[in-house]
């Protein structure tokens, strides 16, 4: 049990949730109010939905030894496109809603194609390739919204992020849907294996007949799509589009969630369930910090410390130096001696 990659993330999540119980005895209660489930747990799931979605996409990107820094900007762009499409539409028809969804997701997938082509065809390092979108994407988002915070008055649009289905927030269903599809595609078909082998050794997998370039292109497209859905949820939640602040820092949170979930930044094996738990840990941490009255700004410091600890625990050098004295020596000596920066 303790050997499982999921053991420690789950323990941390449980610890954070139980910690909350001391401050708020009603933390675990879920009540039915106005025909809907309400409670802190539901709240964490609902608010964490965009992060979970983006982290799912990020997991696959990181599994191919890449990284997608552009997701924050894609959130802003997708939200901007969605909000601008429905502004001023009549309440009665649902056509603008679907048009907004299609356009926003189309733009997001396009950004994924952009990143994917840069990384797989031109051979730019992922950090740098996606950095371009991170810088320029926010500019484009502001271009779409004319630099203003656009408010949406069209009611159906608010349903994406604020609607309820079967007494639960709709966003939870969206996350579950995307998660199950990703899980099915990567675990029941060979795509998952392809992604892992591309991440572990791109040239070896090319020699064994895997089209690494298309696999890489595909994961960036998927990451763009996930960020696009997240952007729609976020913008519909606040019924507005803000090119400057929508999705700010999300790329960092998503990377953090993936790393906590046990996927190594070196590429190779990935753990989608771990990622979901990682995203939930981050969301519960945020909720906890707000609810126990510590200044919200501590959040950043806490996240920094958490990410460093997790990275150190993943580092073979650290394990050898710190735990090496207690365990059999030299098990991991031969591993990961190469140059780190890919």
């Amino acid at each position, binding site marked *: 049990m303790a050997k499982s990659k999921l053991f420690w993330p789950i323990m941390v999540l449980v610890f954070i949730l139980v910690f909350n119980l001391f401050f708020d005895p009603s933390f675990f209660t879920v009540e039915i109010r106005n025909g809907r489930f309400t409670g802190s747990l539901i709240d964490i799931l609902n608010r964490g939905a965009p992060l979970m979605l983006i982290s799912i996409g990020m997991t696959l990107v990181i599994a191919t030894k890449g990284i997608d820094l552009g997701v924050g900007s894609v959130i802003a762009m997708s939200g901007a496109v969605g909000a601008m499409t429905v502004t001023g539409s009549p309440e009665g028809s649902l056509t603008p809603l679907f048009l907004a969804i299609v356009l926003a997701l189309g733009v997001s997938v396009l950004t994924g194609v952009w990143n994917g082509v840069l990384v797989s065809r031109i051979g730019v390092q992922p950090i740098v390739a996606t950095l*371009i979108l991170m810088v320029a994407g926010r*500019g484009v988002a502001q271009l779409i919204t004319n630099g203003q915070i656009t408010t949406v008055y069209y009611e159906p649009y608010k349903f994406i992020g604020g609607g309820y289905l079967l007494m639960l927030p709709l966003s939870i269903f969206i996350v579950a849907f995307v998660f199950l599809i990703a899980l099915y595609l990567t675990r029941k078909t060979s795509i998952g294996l392809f992604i892992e082998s591309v991440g572990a050794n791109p040239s070896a997998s090319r020699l064994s007949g895997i089209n690494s370039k298309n696999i890489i292109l595909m994961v960036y497209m998927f990451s763009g799509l996930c960020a696009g859905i997240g952007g729609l949820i976020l913008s519909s939640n606040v019924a507005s589009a803000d090119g400057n602040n929508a999705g700010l820092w999300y790329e960092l949170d998503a990377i953090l969630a993936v790393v906590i979930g046990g996927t190594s930044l070196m590429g190779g094996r990935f753990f989608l369930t771990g990622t979901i738990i990682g995203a939930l840990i981050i969301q519960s941490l945020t909720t906890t910090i707000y609810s126990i009255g510590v200044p919200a700004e501590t959040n950043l410091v806490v996240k920094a410390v958490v990410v460093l600890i997790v990275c150190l625990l993943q580092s073979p050098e650290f394990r050898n130096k710190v735990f090496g004295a207690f365990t059999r020596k030299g098990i991991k000596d031969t591993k990961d001696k190469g140059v780190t*920066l890919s």
Partner: protein
Amino acid sequence: MKSLKLDYRQLPLLATFALFIMMYAFGSTRYTGFLSTQVFLNLFIDNAFLIIVAVGMTFVILSGGIDLSVGSVIALTSMVAASLVMNAQLSPWIVIPICLLVGSLIGLGQGCLIHFFNLQPFIVTLAGMFLARGLSYLISVETIAINNPFFDFMASSRIPLGDSFISISVVIALVVVVLAVFVGHYSKFGRNVYALGGNEQSAVLMGLPVGKTKIMIYVISGFCASLAGLVFTFYMLSGYGLHANGLELDAIAAVVIGGTLLTGGAGYVAGSVVGVLILGIIQTIIVFEGTLSSWWTKIAIGALLLLFIVFQRVIVIRSKVKKSSVT
């Protein structure tokens, strides 16, 4: 005829120079008043802090690493300086060394984590970015305005240069550039940085002090970031946790546009200065144009970055083909 042959390493730098001259010529013909000494000097005055950061970043990228924490270190420095001067009423002569020490220590910590535990520079400095911004929020969430004779002097004094002027910050930036050019191109440490960026394993096999160099690079970057933070504080006369948000990207863009290869091992410190000036001239053109909004700056920087990265890839691929055809 060897002197006429261009090294592939110099191509990006030449392209950058040509671009700068072209943009300047474009601005001069299009807008009246663009071609004045003061407009040119303003490029330095407004971007003095970015020049300093870019110099530190050049060393990091030359070594094949990356430092995402510089923007936050600037914010932290401005916060520390503001709170120590205004709230603790300390003399600037004590405050300035403390500020520089803070940045250098953050750099030292990052360098140690990267070297000793073989962590990726990207993730370590990402954590450093969170940490520094979080710490500056812990000092205060509000803006702290600075009202101190020394800071006022640094902010407002003008050094006449013909019929125009520069600020003290520009002098600081230029001193940093000169020192960095010397360290980068004429010192043992500089050679080690290039060797490390070229191929780390070869550097180890050659018996170079890889660990020491690596840690030192991040200390330099941290030091430059905090010095830039001080210059930024002179410029803004306030401390605020959101200062210089996203500046790390501008710095990386400046270094790349300045002709340093992102894979490390090739580039020039002086190139990064030209890179910063190009970013500055984009902003100036957008201001002169008047009708364009400021977000066009971001799009223009992104487009330029793309252009130069693709350009670099083409050069690297072509030089590889050449090498393999020779041997």
